[in-house]
């Protein structure tokens, strides 16, 4: 009986207030879609980080005869430079940090370059001697790259020591800015959603002031009076967040997996399972915000 009564009242409230409810649903939908997008971007960043940070290496580029004079005054690095570097990498100080390293000579560098740029005009003009001989160093902990950089920078015969993660960090910074922007928009939209829900609930309460007056007179508890209004907000919020979940799901399966993943086959992208893990959070956030907004607004409107 109790539940039956509450749901009947809820149905009446929703029918009377339909256009406002629809606007609450739409605003919640859009704002939570932004929240979900930000979440997806963060997941994308995380998955790219684990994938690329493991692959990223510290590169020790040796001087070539084309290197700038001020860095490499003696021109092409000699065999001695190579053995000095090998000696240091094998030394007791550095060895514990290093997972593995290998040396790439001009010819190997040329092969790799030809493979990577085989559709590019530049491949025709590059010669093997122009490409740096390189020591590629994999670290046990990629965060310790500065140790390698410090030990080799300034050594004669070395053109540059570069942590490849610095290239990745730029990409991640851009993705992070994107997700921050999405979160800021989401925040503004959620704020307006909360205001809209408060207004809607108060309007709903005004429309039903006769019922509320009688409920108070006959001694209905506050919980009983407030519940249909709070549920009204929660239902609108839940529908909005379900739509947002659907939108996120569609973005992942049609845009990310259906388009991006086809275009960039060697990058790992967020998948449908990632979108599914976001769904409970979105539903919870939508329902909770709507419920709290409705609760605080109805409490201000109704006093014993």
């Amino acid at each position: 009986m109790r539940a039956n009564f509450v749901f009947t009242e809820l149905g009446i409230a929703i029918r009377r207030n339909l256009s406002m409810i629809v606007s609450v649903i739409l605003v919640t939908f859009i704002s939570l879609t932004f929240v979900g997008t930000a979440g997806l971007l963060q997941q994308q960043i995380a998955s790219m980080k684990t994938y690329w940070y493991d692959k990223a290496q510290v590169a020790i580029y040796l001087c070539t005869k084309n290197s700038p004079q001020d860095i490499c005054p003696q021109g092409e690095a000699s065999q001695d430079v190579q053995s000095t570097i090998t000696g240091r990498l094998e030394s007791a100080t550095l060895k514990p940090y290093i997972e593995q390293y290998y040396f790439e000579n001009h010819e190997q560098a040329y092969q790799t370059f030809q493979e990577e740029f085989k559709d590019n005009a530049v491949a025709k003009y590059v010669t093997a001697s122009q490409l740096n001989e390189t020591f590629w160093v994999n670290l046990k902990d990629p965060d310790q790259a500065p140790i390698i950089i410090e030990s080799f920078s300034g050594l004669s015969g070395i053109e540059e020591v570069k942590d490849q993660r610095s290239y990745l960090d730029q990409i991640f910074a851009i993705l992070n800015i994107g997700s921050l922007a999405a979160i800021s928009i989401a925040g503004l939209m959620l704020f307006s959603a909360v205001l809209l829900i408060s207004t809607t609930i108060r309007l709903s309460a005004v429309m039903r002031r006769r019922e509320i007056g009688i409920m108070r007179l006959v001694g209905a508890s506050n919980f009983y009076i407030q519940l249909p209004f709070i549920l009204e907000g929660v239902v609108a919020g839940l529908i909005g967040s379900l739509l947002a979940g659907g939108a996120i799901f569609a973005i992942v399966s049609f845009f990310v997996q259906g388009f991006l993943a086809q275009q960039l086959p060697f990058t790992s992208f967020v998948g449908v399972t990632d979108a599914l893990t976001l769904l409970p959070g979105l539903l919870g956030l939508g329902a909770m915000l709507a419920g709290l907004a409705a609760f605080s607004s109805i409490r201000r409107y109704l006093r014993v």
Partner: protein
Amino acid sequence: MISLSQITKLYKGAPRPALDNVSLEVDKGEFVFLVGASGSGKSSLMRMILREDVPSSGSIHVLGENLIGIPNRRVPHFRRSLGVVFQDFRLLPNKTAAQNVAFSLEVIGKSSGLIAEAVPDVLRLVGLEEKANSLPSELSGGEQQRVALARAIVNKPAILLADEPTGNLDPSTSEDIMALLDRINLSGTTILMATHDRGIVDRGRKRVIELSQGKIVRDESSSGYEVK
């Protein structure tokens, strides 16, 4: 049952108190008329008893509850022991007579079995069993007030507050409502009725409390509308 001691109520900006040092006792089973000009404090007094408002000073006990100290969350439960009817009936226009009565039980969480039993009973008591499925707009004023009375007493309140219940009704319909109130009173419900209806008070020969400018100027048993 109802006990007010030196109640004063000051509203902000009002030149004089709405209630000025009012003390009264009403016992179980009494029928009391509350008379006085508009603005004399009748409605304020009713609001205090319903705990819709608290006095600025004084103490008030109703049904053993100290209404000054009662916590807000206990107020709804307290009100379940009181029934109220008004001059303007206050029925829900989109619900039938039976649904209006049932509503007051539904919102305090009564079971559907109890409601199915109590609603026809109380409609029979007020003589409206034939009109159970009529909307308020299809009922006469007297019938609407009877629905309101049915709603007020369906939960078997110890006290019934009636704020000018016959104010919108013609004399013969008013008599019907009074007869109904008498029956409710005879079954043990204490009734406090505010009214301007001289004829009803004079014929009732009941206790009359007269308010003027927020003060009790008369409190007599078996009295009339005016001092003879």
